[in-house]
């Protein structure tokens, strides 16, 4: 459980604490039917995530900015007691959405299993308190339940982060839990049956899925929702510049007066390569093997800022970001280099006002 020290705010409070007021206001106003052990009705959960104004004037801040459809499908999935799988490239707020969903549905976002390459079966099923086990033999007292086991027993929402990083044999333990809704404890000849209200939200990265791809048996137990990248250039430029400013401040880089143009350029290049088509929709381009997520755009710009501060004239110039872009785009030296060169020749060279950038890129790619 959370250990909270009185009078000392946590560095990052849990969603259900940070937004306790909004959740309470929603619960008070919510007169729609709620599934068993849900704190809110599905409609109120969707409102909590998407934001809105309640009849009494309480303003609910949007937690997720993106298509309404996605949140609706996610909430509905949980209401039909199907497990939910949130897919997306890194930096698309999968964890964020899963935390807020759990907070709104069950009022508790802490029943969490962090998936890693070393996640053992015990983290999903149960472990043993060996002192107890040796002293008193196997019993419920010696059992250390996993967050999922607790969620099953109490009818809560459990979360599994980075499902595809978990080894395949450990993933498979989820199958029984999700299909039979029961967790046998062979050592005691008992089982824990999930009570109504139990559900599971998993997140996974769909780009480098090679890690431990889900078996189709497991996949079948999930409804999948793909979280998309930001919809428009403006939205993405906004996210990137805001984030760059935050990062820059913590690194104590000076604010750059004229950086927005370069940021827009980086975002444009990333979007075009990612989408495989130029922003005017007239020319198709090949996509490289890398992800080119918003997070990477942020890192390219931050890098460029550091370069310009320490080695340049303090202004963000094309040459400062060119090397970073090249590094982000060309992950596979053979195939991606062709993609990048084609893009340079076919798109960048022709574009008005991009001459400096073209030259800078030619210099670093040569």
């Amino acid at each position, binding site marked *: 459980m959370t250990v909270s020290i009185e009078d000392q705010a946590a560095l990052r409070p849990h969603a259900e604490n940070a937004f306790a007021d909004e959740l309470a206001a929603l619960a008070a106003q919510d007169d729609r039917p709620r599934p068993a052990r849900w704190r809110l009705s599905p409609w109120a959960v969707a409102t909590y995530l998407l934001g809105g104004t309640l009849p009494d004037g309480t303003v609910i801040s949007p937690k997720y900015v993106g298509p309404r459809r996605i949140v609706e499908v996610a909430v509905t999935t949980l209401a*039909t007691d199907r497990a939910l799988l949130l897919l997306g490239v890194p930096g698309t707020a999968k964890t964020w959405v899963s935390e807020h969903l759990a907070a709104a549905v069950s009022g508790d976002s802490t029943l969490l299993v962090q998936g890693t390459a070393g996640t053992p079966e015990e983290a999903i099923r149960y472990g043993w308190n060996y002192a107890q086990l040796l002293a008193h033999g196997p019993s419920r007292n010696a059992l250390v339940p996993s967050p999922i086991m607790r969620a099953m027993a109490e009818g809560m929402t459990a979360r599994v982060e980075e499902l595809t990083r978990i080894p395949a044999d450990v993933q498979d333990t989820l199958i029984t839990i999700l299909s039979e809704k029961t967790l046998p404890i062979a050592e005691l000849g008992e089982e824990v049956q999930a009570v109504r209200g139990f559900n599971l939200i998993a997140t996974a990265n769909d780009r480098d899925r090679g890690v431990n791809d889900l078996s189709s048996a497991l996949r079948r137990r999930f409804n999948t929702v793909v979280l998309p990248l930001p919809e428009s250039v403006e939205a993405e430029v906004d996210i990137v510049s805001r984030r760059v400013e935050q990062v820059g401040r913590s690194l104590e880089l000076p604010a750059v007066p004229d950086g927005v143009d370069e940021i827009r350029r980086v975002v444009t290049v990333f979007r075009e390569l990612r989408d495989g088509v130029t922003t005017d929709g007239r020319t198709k*381009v090949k996509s490289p093997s890398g992800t080119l997520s918003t997070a990477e755009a942020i890192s390219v710009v931050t890098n460029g800022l550091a370069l310009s501060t320490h080695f340049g004239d303090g202004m963000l110039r094309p040459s400062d970001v060119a090397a970073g872009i090249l590094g982000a785009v060309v992950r596979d030296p053979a195939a991606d280099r062709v993609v990048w060169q084609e893009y340079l020749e076919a798109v960048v060279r022709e574009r008005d006002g991009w001459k400096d950038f073209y030259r800078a890129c030619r210099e670093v790619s040569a």
Partner: protein
Amino acid sequence: MSGPLLLGVRHHGPGSARAVRRALEAAGPAAVLVEGPPEADALVELAADDDMRPPVALLAHVVDEPGKSAFWPFAEFSPEWVAIDWALRHGVPVRFIDLPAAHTLAMRARPPRPGRTDPIGALAEVAGYDDPERWWEDVVEHREGEAFTALGEAMAALREAHEAHEAHQAHETQEAHKACETHKACEIQECPGDSVDPDTGWNAVDDHDLVREAYMRLQVRAARREFGDDVAVVCGAWHVPALRRRTTVAADRALLKGLPKAKVDMTWVPWTHRRLARAGGYGAGIESPGWYRHLFEVPDRPVERWLTKVAGLLREEGRIVSSAHVIEAVRLADTLAALRGRPLAGLGETTDAVRAVLCEGSDVPLALIHDRLVVGDVLGEVPEAAPAVPLQRDLSRTQRSLRLKPAALEKELDLDLRGDTDAARSRLLHRLRLLGVHWGEPADSARGSTGTFRETWRLRWEPELSVRVAEAGVWGTTVLGAATARAESDAVAAEALTDVTALAERCLLAGLPDALPTVMRVLADRAALDADVGHLAQALPALVRSLRYGDVRGTDTGALAEVAAGLAERVFVGLPPACAGLDADAATQMRGHVDAVHAAVALLEETGLRERWRTVLRSLAVREGTAGEVRGRCARLLLDEGELADDETARLMGLALSPGTPPAEAAAWIEGFVGGGSGGGLLLVHDERLLALVDGWLMEVSPDAFTDVLPLLRRTFSAYDAGVRRTLGELVRRGPAASGAATALTGIPHGFAEELNPARADAVVPVVRMLLGAGAGAGAGAGVAA
């Protein structure tokens, strides 16, 4: 019954269609009046024909101008179609009551289309729906009960609001005019009020609708005189209040006075779901005809049946979809509908459910489902008794004006494209070929002429070609329009890059400039996404050829040149990496690509490209890891271009043939450099230094390796003419050192005496005369290359 039964519908709405059928069954009217052109009254019987299968459309066109036409599409779920079908089945007369096409077409107005003024959208907005289609689905399509009365009232309220809005607008216009008068600089033409209102999208001047409604009222009156009050009217919901309104005959007649008129022909043509779905042009703008058809067809449980259908499609495509999946999808769709406060899951909910459950969040299979099911591949059929389509008329007219009679007997036709008539004939035949009407097949000229201004065709008109023409009628009303539409559609559907380039060529031959932009766009897209340089290299020559051919025909080929240049750029970028790590066969193929690109680039106008191509060749020629054959070939091309100094050539060859290079690789280099029909043998004959290099290398090849390279070398050298081979042999036998010394000493080439031998010289004179064309020169091969 006190008056006509007014059934206001949404065009192509399956719920409306069902409601109409129920209302007709219940009322059993004496006549059915349908919104549509009255010229079609004579054709309506055909709708009951066994061979008539919707989707079909009524097509009206001006007699002398088939290009000027209008369509009234009907799907089996269209309320109008249901009404016609019911009437014909029950022997009840059907009348079309809309403004005659003769007027509509003469007024040059667009064909009457539902939703121009968007009443449904306004109602949906009032009801809090962002999407009018969804609102309609919830209120009408998903409802079993009677909606006509309520809908009519809603429409009446809307029309009042609309008219008030218009009055307001007129007022504002006056204000604006006043403002204009005060500001003299402002131009009157730019005053608001007589253009489309941007807020609502409503056309502020709806005279056309008023005229149509006046005509409908007159028709309804006439029908009531003929059949009594017991008639049913099926029309767009928007018109219901207008038909209910009491006006005088005189007032209606006054509105119709002085309408222009054109001579119009009418027929049935087959239609497709895709065309129903297309928003612009002749489409009805329904986004999901397949879904509507499903709603209309299924007896019950539409969502379950739909998702089962989707699962079936996905299984056909090899995705694993179990019944459990379908069950979960149905549950998700139903719960989503509940969350969104809808009475029944609609297309939006089922699509979301399919995406989350059946497609694992991916949009790729979803696109397939949209294409195959939501839109669907349904093609209508029309009985043979239907009057000829305008395409046929246009064809006959063109045939007459070009004096090209269709005849069953095969005949050969030689065309000289410099003449206008012949050029037009050629274009016609090419267009027909594009449309799948193979009246003429290109043939080899009997005269053996190969000039680009000549074409030979073999013509033969088979009876079934008329059927083909009728089928091609869906593409358009004139041969030109249909061929353009067909070419565009083919381009989008084409799979391989070369198909698209071939299509571009055909567009030029057929003189379809309007199709070119689409074809070029598709071509550019395909080229951008094709990762195989081989494909690009194959496509380039055809494109360059069309470019030059277009020049001959005086077509504007600017776009083509741009695409060709873009394609060339991509080849330049992609070629060097593609030439690395190739096996022998792939290298030979790649050499062919290099040759083809080289020839094509030489023909391109833009000289900057040639410069860049030389850079590519140069980098290929020296790049480690590039296949030997390709490297040799590049060196040779550069040499032929005069880009390599002699020393440089020798250096490259020396590098390629140095002992460090594996013998097989070196042999491949030689094949690339002097192999094939490129006159490489003569090069060796004349440049003894190169020959010496080859010779020297061959001497140093170890016995084992020699056996390995022998087949390749044999292939290279056996392709030479016997004479060249012999000379080479002699040169090698004499040894490079000796010949070099001899030439250096005397300045006289080997094989020549110091003085002229007149007798031997005379002996070759006849041959030289023949070569120079002074004698009977035809057929003398110009086998001597540079």
